[in-house]
């Protein structure tokens, strides 16, 4: 018993020493849950490469991200929207120089099954499908077929973007299917007559219809230019030009390697 205790203490002490011995430089990130998967995945890869880096990522939403930078409680604030005028004003007052770093673009494709004759849709009609106003494709000029509405789990970033850009504060009908991943949505839409769903740009497959929304076809160009209505840039804000480890991390996110991770998460690369 005693020996065991001594052993345990030894392990604990040596572990602590090892931790102290290293010079760790911390980077803290907080903000948008949409950017969270990018921040988390890049942080892990970054820490694998840099032994002395300790990047911690928290959520909270875009507002929390920007406010945290203004208050100086984090090094990097993640936001899925641009800073509002009010926030910029506040930054000026408190002497903070909000600096924007676009790390990815996010575009969401609206997809239906291959047999659906409807190829384009207005943002307004799309909202009316998702809030339950339209329940049959014939109301939109299609064939007489029930609309099977497929949505994503409420905590996913894809849901957040879709809700923000399409729903205009209206609620998505509760009977919509809530699937757990982009792939699950693609599979269900592919195999279900009358289904409609939405997925990140990176998840489009050939055997579904990708709807033209408000006259714009989704593509890397239209997402980047913002012409495609369900798209936005994802950014990280810092106070002035980043320094030290924060700069190293942001450079990593923007590098080819970091952008590969961005694409893997279903977002569009910046280059």
């Amino acid at each position: 018993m005693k020996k065991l205790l001594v052993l345990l203490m030894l392990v604990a002490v040596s572990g602590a020493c090892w931790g102290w011995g290293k010079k760790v430089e911390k980077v803290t990130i907080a903000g948008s849950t949409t950017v969270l998967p990018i921040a988390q995945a890049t942080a892990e890869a970054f820490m694998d490469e840099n032994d002395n880096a300790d990047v911690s990522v928290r959520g909270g939403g875009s507002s929390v991200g920007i406010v945290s930078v203004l208050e100086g409680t984090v090094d990097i604030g993640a936001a899925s929207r641009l800073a509002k005028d009010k926030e910029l004003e506040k930054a000026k007052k408190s002497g903070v120089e909000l600096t924007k770093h676009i790390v990815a673009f996010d575009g969401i494709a609206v997809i239906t099954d291959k047999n659906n004759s409807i190829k384009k849709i207005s943002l307004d009609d799309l909202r009316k499908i998702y809030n339950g106003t339209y329940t049959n494709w014939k109301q939109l000029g299609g064939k007489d077929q029930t609309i099977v509405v497929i949505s994503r789990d409420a905590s996913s970033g894809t849901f957040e973007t879709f809700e923000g850009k399409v729903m205009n504060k209206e609620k998505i009908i509760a009977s919509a299917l809530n699937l757990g991943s982009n792939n699950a949505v693609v599979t269900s839409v592919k195999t279900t007559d009358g289904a409609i769903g939405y997925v990140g740009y990176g998840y489009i497959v050939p055997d579904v219809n990708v709807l033209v929304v408000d006259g714009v076809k989704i593509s890397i160009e239209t997402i980047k230019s913002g012409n495609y209505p369900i798209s936005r840039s994802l950014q990280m804000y810092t106070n002035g030009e980043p320094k030290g480890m924060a700069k190293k991390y942001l450079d990593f996110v923007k590098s080819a390697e970091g952008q590969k991770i961005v694409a893997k998460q279903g977002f569009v690369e910046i280059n």
Partner: protein
Amino acid sequence: MKKKEKLFDFLVYLSAVCVVLALLGIVFSVFGEGVKVFKAVSFGDFLFNTEWRPTAEEPIFGIGAILVGSLVVTLGAMAVAVPLGLGSGIYLAEFAGSNFREIIKPTIELLAGIPSVVYGLFGMVVLSPFVQNYLGADIGLNLFTTSIVLGIMVVPIICSVSEDALSVVPNSLREASLGLGANKWETTVRVVVPAARSGILKSLVLGLGRAVGETMVVVMLAGGSAIIPKSIFSPVRPMPATVAAEMGETVIGSSHYHALFAISMILFIICFGLVLVANYLSNRGVEV
């Protein structure tokens, strides 16, 4: 020698303590995080409100529809599993020849060894398209599909536990019944099954616990709509699916996070209660 014995004694004692500690750890962490949600929403609203909008601007945490989702999926699974499980259990214990039993029993128990994700995959790829294409459901991911797959998963539990209970019924009971002129069927239904009733009930309770807590299958097959189902082809959202699907991307420490813990807490209480009932039943043993 004595030292060795003491050491062994201590080691097994230690492992028992570890298990208890693990349980306590789980209870404290789940309940500790779970009760925090009641700062944001009242207990009654949480349980009975049927609207679940955890990420809305003004979030609504009502698990009424989710509770109903769990309930109907479990009942559906039991509707599939009880006849199949009990039937095969009774058949194996009372009617099957010993050679045949040696083959069938391990086969049924093998069902219990299949990982749940494989069941889920089977449901997604085979059953769900079938339900959609031939039974007229709008979409194959629904209550019906989930119930069938969950039911098949529960069969081996009910079958093997009830078979065990039936096989410990003393032969003298069967002989007495047959001796009084009852035939094999009457003996089974009127004498053997009632004698083994607490064991059979235990098998049902254990099966119920399995069905309530199963996660992977409901994540993959239930469809995930937090609504009170209107038909057997409605998609539903049972408790484990909600926790599993949302925990990954929720913000740690938010009300949503605590609400998911509260759901786990309720799930834990239900399953724990079922295990207690099963234990109580198995302590009663065979009744004559």
